[in-house]
């Protein structure tokens, strides 16, 4: 469960995030929409405790991410826009490393299983990651989330740069994880995917959440219209 | 076109905080080390001058004694310092400062200043030469490695080239700009150094230093040119600015730290010097088979006696019109001189061969060539130390000859010991040492100069070719 309470961040007087209040329950996919610099990545970085908040709190599973930095990372998974892995190691070796850092020990077979579940074919898993496409690297990231049995997922622009088939595969995986009880926060430009797989969407502008909608209450065209209205000016 | 580029480089450099910091520190170190070198030169020169006068006074006022006793009393020779030593101390800390000139022995120079220092001096003395040979090249590298590489990474290289600027023009412009920056550091220090010299060196010393200074200036100029050209060449061809920096720093470390030590070990392996014990033993053996002025039982002494008796056509030593002791003493000295000359010239030849190895090794590291030249021009290399040692040895032989000739001619007294006074001591002229001139120095440094020039020319060629095949991305 992801929770932001009056979460704010400013750099030298510039406000990047202004009093964000957000609660994402397990089994929910929340999509953050907004222009570049609207505060989407800042929000994710705050949940990851990669940057300290100027005020307010971010909590994962009731634990403050600043005070329980290491603990909260145990049950969250982060998939950045570019999943960067260790080029000289294979997919399986990368997975092994990250999961062992998370405190889990899996056998080779188990690791292969996770990669397969994430959609990565078995022969690719044994190849060096330096040769992977963006989609393949992303699948390793998802495999990490699956292996960690992550209860909270943070995704930054996951479908940018993916072809429609890969994007679709990704959506299906997201829904699978949602159904197994994870709380998922997605920062994205992709209005279509947001309506398609999200439970709720939030529109951010200049660091503030200006609108929150339930996707089952609006249609695709509505979403675009509302979005552009808010972006106007 | 070139001047436009150069002017932009100069402007950028002045505004760059890194250049101001690095340049400021290096300038301070250079000025400081030159100041210290100047003070050291004045101090030591004054000391040695005082000591030279004192030893002469002591010789003249040594009282009434037998001339051979006077020969044993002897004089001390003190190594003079040349004005340009303010830039480069060379081997002066590592060779003795004084030699005792006495009868029967050619003594080593004793009291190396380095022995009166702590171990941290092995990290290197802070002299003008150290700054010029080590730190300035580092500044050049730091200024030049981003010359092409960073512009390439920023994307401005494409833009400049798309304007129709030829890569070689760009190269020259950058070279000029960086050269100007380095000049900002080196020229003020050079002027200060020249001024200090003009003020402190005695008459004639400054004038005779000017040609040496000019050649030294040219040598360092060639050295800096080589470093600059290599840095620009690497920058033009390296795949990234980081690789350029790492490569050039590696070169700097090899050139400045590793090559001198490698050259030392190489020279020692190829040309072996004897141990001090071996050397002394050889001389001892050589002398033993010679005339011993104190021991008339020696075989060679007998031969000499027979020859002298025959020359003066008498049968007994007491019938000689001259004092035999004087003749035998001089014969002993001359035999000894032969022995000394034989072994010392062997040793100094070996040293010269080792120096040749250092010079040849400068094919791999230009620093070795400029180091050799710098020391030689400053008058602080081993060759000039040996020149002084040779001169003082000659003077020692003059003393012996005067004393022994006097004993031979006038030493036949009826009763009591043969005594002389200051009238005889005065007959020995004062030790007037003339340092070798520039031609002498250059004749011994021709290889260094040639290799340094080759480095400069070769690296300019390299840089030119590199800019022709400039890597644009």
């Amino acid at each position, binding site marked *: 469960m992801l929770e932001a309470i009056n979460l704010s961040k400013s750099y030298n007087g510039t406000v990047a995030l202004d009093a964000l209040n957000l609660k994402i329950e397990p089994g929910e996919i929340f999509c953050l929409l907004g222009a570049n610099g609207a505060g989407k990545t800042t929000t994710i970085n705050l949940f990851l405790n990669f940057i300290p908040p100027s005020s307010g709190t971010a909590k994962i599973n009731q634990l403050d991410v600043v005070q329980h930095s290491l603990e909260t990372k145990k049950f969250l998974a982060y998939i950045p826009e570019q999943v960067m892995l260790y080029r000289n190691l294979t997919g399986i070796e990368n997975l092994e490393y990250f999961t062992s850092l998370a405190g889990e020990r899996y056998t080779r077979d188990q690791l292969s299983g996770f990669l397969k579940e994430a959609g990565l074919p078995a022969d690719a898993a044994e190849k060096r990651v330096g040769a992977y496409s963006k989609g393949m690297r992303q699948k390793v990231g998802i495999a990490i989330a699956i292996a960690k049995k992550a209860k909270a997922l943070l995704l930054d622009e996951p479908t940018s740069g993916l072809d429609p088939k890969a994007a679709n595969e990704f959506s299906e995986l997201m829904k699978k994880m949602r159904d197994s009880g994870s709380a998922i926060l997605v920062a994205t430009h992709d209005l279509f995917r947001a309506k398609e797989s999200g439970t709720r969407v939030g529109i951010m502008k200049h660091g503030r959440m200006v609108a929150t909608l339930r996707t089952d209450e609006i249609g695709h065209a509505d979403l675009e219209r509302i979005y552009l209205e808010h972006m106007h000016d | 076109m070139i001047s436009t580029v150069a002017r932009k480089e100069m402007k950028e450099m002045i505004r760059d905080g890194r250049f101001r910091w690095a340049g400021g520190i290096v300038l301070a170190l250079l000025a400081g080390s030159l100041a210290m070198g100047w003070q050291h030169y004045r101090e030591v020169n004054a000391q040695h001058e005082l000591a030279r006068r004192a030893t002469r006074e002591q010789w003249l006022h040594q009282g009434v004694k037998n001339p051979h006793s006077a020969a044993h009393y002897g004089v001390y020779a003190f190594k003079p310092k040349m004005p340009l030593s303010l830039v480069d101390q060379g081997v002066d800390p590592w060779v003795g400062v004084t030699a005792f000139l006495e009868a029967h022995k050619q003594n080593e120079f004793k009291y190396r200043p380095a022995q009166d220092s702590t171990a941290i001096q092995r*990290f290197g003395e802070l002299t003008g030469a150290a700054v010029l040979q080590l730190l300035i090249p580092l500044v050049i590298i730091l200024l030049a490695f981003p010359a092409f590489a960073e512009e390439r990474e920023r994307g401005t290289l494409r833009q400049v080239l798309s304007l129709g600027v030829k890569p070689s023009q760009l190269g020259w412009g950058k070279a000029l700009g960086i050269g100007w920056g380095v000049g900002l550091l080196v020229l003020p220090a050079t002027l200060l150094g020249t001024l200090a010299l003009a003020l402190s060196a005695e008459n004639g010393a400054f004038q005779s230093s000017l040609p040496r200074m000019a050649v030294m200036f040219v040598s360092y100029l060639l050295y800096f040119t080589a470093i600059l050209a290599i840095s620009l060449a690497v920058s033009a061809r390296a795949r990234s600015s980081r690789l350029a920096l790492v490569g050039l720093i590696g070169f700097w470390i090899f050139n400045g730290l590793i090559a001198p030590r490698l050259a030392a070990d190489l020279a020692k392996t190829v040309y072996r010097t004897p141990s001090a014990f071996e050397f002394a033993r050889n001389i001892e053996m050589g002398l033993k088979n010679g005339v011993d002025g104190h021991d008339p039982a020696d075989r060679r002494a007998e031969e000499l006696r027979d020859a002298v008796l025959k020359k003066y056509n008498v049968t007994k030593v007491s019938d000689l019109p001259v004092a035999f002791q004087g003749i035998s003493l001089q014969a002993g000295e001359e035999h000894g001189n032969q022995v000394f000359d034989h072994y010392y010239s062997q040793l100094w030849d070996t040293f010269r061969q080792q120096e040749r190895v250092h010079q040849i090794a400068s094919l791999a590291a230009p620093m070795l060539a400029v180091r050799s030249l710098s020391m030689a021009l400053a008058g602080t290399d081993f060759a000039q130390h040996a020149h002084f040692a040779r001169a003082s040895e000659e003077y020692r032989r003059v003393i012996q000859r005067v004393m022994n000739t006097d004993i031979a001619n006038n030493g036949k007294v009826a009763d009591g010991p043969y005594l002389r006074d200051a009238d005889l001591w005065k007959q020995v002229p004062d030790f007037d040492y003339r340092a070798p001139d520039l031609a002498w120095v250059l004749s011994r440094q021709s290889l260094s100069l040639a290799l340094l020039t080759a480095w400069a020319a070769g690296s300019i060629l390299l840089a030119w070719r590199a800019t022709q095949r400039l890597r644009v991305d």
Partner: protein
Amino acid sequence: MLTQIVKHEWRNLRADRTLWAVAALLAVTIGFGIRNGSEWVRFQNDTLKAVAAEERERLAAVNSGIIDAQAGRTKPTSFTDPRSPSVVGRTLGARYASMPPAPLAALAIGQSDLYPYYFKVSTSTRQTFLNNDEIEHPVHLMSGRFDLAFVILYLYPLIILALSYNLLSAEKEAGTLAMTLSQPVGLPKLVLGKIALRFVFILLPGGVLSLAGAIGGGTNIAADGGGSRLLLWFGVVALYGAFWYALAAAVNAFGRGSSSNAIALAAFWLAFVLVIPSLLNVGVKYVHPVPSRVELIQAMREASREAAAQGSRLLASYYEDHPELAGDRTDAADFAALALANQEQVEKRIRPVLDRFDQQLDLQQRLVDRYRFLSPAVVAQAALFDIAGTSEHRYKHFLGLADRFHRDWRAHFYRQIVRNASLAPQDVDRFPEFHFEEEPWRAVAGRSEVGLVVLLFAVMVVGAVAAWLLRRYPVAA
């Protein structure tokens, strides 16, 4: 978890060609350095053997010379008579005081190429035999030698920095850092793991190679406390390396890019290894300048002239100082005794000048000791030279022993000189003999341990700074 990080780091680095190039460089330089050190030790040992052989020959010649002269077969003059104690004590029978190279001397040439390692001790003044410099081209002394200590003091930090300058910055620039830090692993532990791998990778093979090279070069490490010396040596190398790793971590912790890190660390290396030591050298010499040797010579000349002028008055005061010798006087003996009195007077006169030298040098050394914390290289150099037994401490110790031997030698011969005694063949065996003893290990170890503590302190301080900075490390952007 630390082992995971170390294992992973190994897998990562293994594929990097730089690592192997660096390892090869280290191996070559270590091998070459030890070779040079061993050569020098071999040279010294060979010379000392030759020296001892010469002494044996000469003393045997004295023995047979005495026998021949006593039998009337030879008629030596008063200046060459082997029966005369003054001749034997001054030239014919002079014995050597030798200092063999210390057990680990092959590892660091140190100051041993600058100071004598044997003296020909006789009844003459100290000054006559003290300046027994070895033959070496002064340019080699100036540039220093390529020994293991050079590799450790100069190249080892560079290798460490070459492998660690982008410790964190590389991962940040590659993007993998965000992936790693989204796992429950703290940044300090991550950095520690990365350092641990490099530390072991360089130190272990380097250490083994050095040891192998030293043994192969003929060093007998088992002799006189060689084991504890090795342990201390290793400790210094480990702590010196740890300092540079801590520094790399601290610089990385600022969060700048790899290129900035490289330049910053290069600047630190330059400062600590080149600039600060030479500035310290200059400063120390400025604050406590050593008197000029020229002054010493003047003092000696003056003193001997005055002594000669005093003539028989000198002799009288000599017997006042040595009443035990006054009883056996003869004329010939008086001549010899006059010479001795002369010598003693000269030495008394120049004593204060010599003392001032030692004093100033001592003050310089103490100043260096006080400020050596300014550079870990200075601390490490002092410790390494001391442990290897090639520092001026060991030389001073040797000088003290040689002085004592000189006094014993003189005492032995003076007695016979003033009595105008004649030497017999069996006397040769009773000549005083020099035996070198190492400095008590406690003294050497004590000095090195101070160095270790200073290094440890430096590592902790820089490490603390690194840890503090890591807490504020900008993971994002």
